[in-house]
């Protein structure tokens, strides 16, 4: 009976979400379109259509710049349009956005003081979360930009908690929430609890796959390795900041299992052993 009641509970919750009720599973397609639209806004309109070469935009740059998702981009991002095909194409390019820019770097005006313009991507991301609450990357992107360029840690926390309601125990969301408590709220005790919950969730995510396989260096294991490494490295930083060197070393040793650059982590371990912070 228990699995059936759980399924009913999930179904009732899903039907309460407006877009899912109207569009059903196809709301995921619209969510993806909204996510892509946010990236178009991130580029101030200079964005490939389905007819252009979009090899350099397979992973949205606003997500790639957060460092939270693997990049699948190839080719030159500044030249997806290519050379003008004829005089008409060359002429028409004067009337559309025709230069690669990012909103957090000042946009078309190249004015770094206006990096908070990145807020303009938020409505589309908010729409994407409503249409597909199970897409983790949307919450990660929203919380990153709210926390960094827009200095709204409390709003970022609210978003992540909303994401956790829809995706209970997701380790990536727990990691980001832990960062907010440690870096913005300066509450290391609570941050430690959240990070450790994230590590436990990570272990329980794929119980049948051994940890060694999940941490094997491979493109397909990027998400697993990334989250695990970040959780352990940030736990090490937290323990280090509280003077718990032994605990910090243990966490860094764990992080080495997932890191492609274990030398840097080994250096940090050596420094801690010598008594440097």
């Amino acid at each position: 009976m228990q699995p059936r009641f759980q399924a009913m509970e999930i179904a009732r919750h899903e039907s309460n979400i407006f877009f899912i009720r109207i569009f059903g599973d196809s709301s995921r397609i619209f969510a993806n379109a909204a996510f892509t639209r946010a990236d178009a806004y991130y580029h101030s309109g200079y964005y490939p259509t389905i007819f252009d070469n979009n090899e350099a935009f397979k992973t949205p740059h606003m997500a790639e710049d957060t460092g939270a998702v693997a990049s699948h981009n190839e080719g030159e991002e500044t030249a997806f349009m290519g050379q003008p095909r004829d005089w008409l194409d060359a002429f028409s390019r004067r009337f559309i956005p025709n230069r690669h820019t990012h909103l957090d770097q000042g946009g078309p005006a190249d004015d770094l003081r206006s990096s908070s313009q990145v807020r303009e991507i938020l409505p589309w991301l908010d729409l994407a979360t409503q249409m597909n609450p199970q897409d983790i990357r949307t919450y990660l992107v929203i919380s990153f930009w709210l926390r960094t360029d827009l200095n709204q840690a409390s709003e970022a926390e609210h978003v992540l908690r909303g994401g956790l309601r829809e995706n209970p125990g997701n380790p990536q969301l727990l990691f980001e929430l832990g960062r907010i408590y440690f870096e913005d709220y300066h509450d290391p005790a609570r941050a430690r609890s959240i990070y450790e919950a994230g590590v436990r969730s990570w272990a329980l995510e794929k119980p049948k796959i051994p940890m060694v396989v999940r941490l094997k260096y491979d493109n397909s294991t990027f998400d697993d390795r990334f989250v695990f490494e970040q959780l352990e490295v940030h736990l090490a930083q937290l323990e280090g900041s509280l003077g718990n060197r032994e605990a910090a070393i243990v966490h860094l040793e764990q992080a080495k299992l997932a890191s492609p650059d274990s030398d840097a982590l080994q250096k940090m371990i050596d420094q801690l052993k010598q008594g440097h912070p």
Partner: protein
Amino acid sequence: MRNVFAVAGIVIKELYRRKDFYVLFILTIIICLVMGSITVFNDTDIIRYVKDLCLLLIWVSSLIIAITTTARQIPAEKEQRTLLPLLAKPLSRTQLIFGKFLGCWVVCGLALLCFYIFFGALAASREHHWPLLNYAQAAFLHWMALGVIVAMSLLGSLVFAAPSSNSTICFSIVAAILCIGRYLDLFAVRMQEPGRSLVYSIYYALPPLEIPFGLRDRIIHDWPPVDWPSVGLLALYLLAYMLFFLIAACLIFRRKAVN
């Protein structure tokens, strides 16, 4: 020219009594104000998605006004049996066509003025600055594009049987140009002859309505204004298409029986 202006004046007076513009304008205002009243993550400075929606609604509304208004001009004169008395006056068929065109185009211009003033006020309420030059360019080129569409609809009203079919065909052609007009050459490159030559011919022959439509993105994302020589060149290019459609309409109307 007096006759042309007289006909245009009658068209303008007739059209500002109709409900089309007012309904579309009020609908645009309501939708934009509702969308603008939403706060996202307690941030009251987010505006670009509202500008995007507003400009899209302005384009859709202006297309509806331009095509539906123009498509019924000549057929309405025929239905009300006022066409023969009109042509019996010292008014040539060419003057009638140009008068109808000018009246519809001016009406589109006045409608656009109202829409863009609202758009400017909406954007300024959050952005706190007025890029008037950008708005002026966008509005001017939008008006020129509508001129081409009005001329095309006028030609269609003489070719097609009913205003409804004329409107439908014009809407379809304009929508196709706005969506894929810029990429027809990409399709052509991947085709075999003679399809390739046919598509290339269509690509070069179609009026470049997608260029003023694409200017929306520069307005939404606060790009600098386009250089004025390019704006002038595009305006002349669109004017050439207007004249082409009008001359074609005049030639067809000259040979058309009106009784």
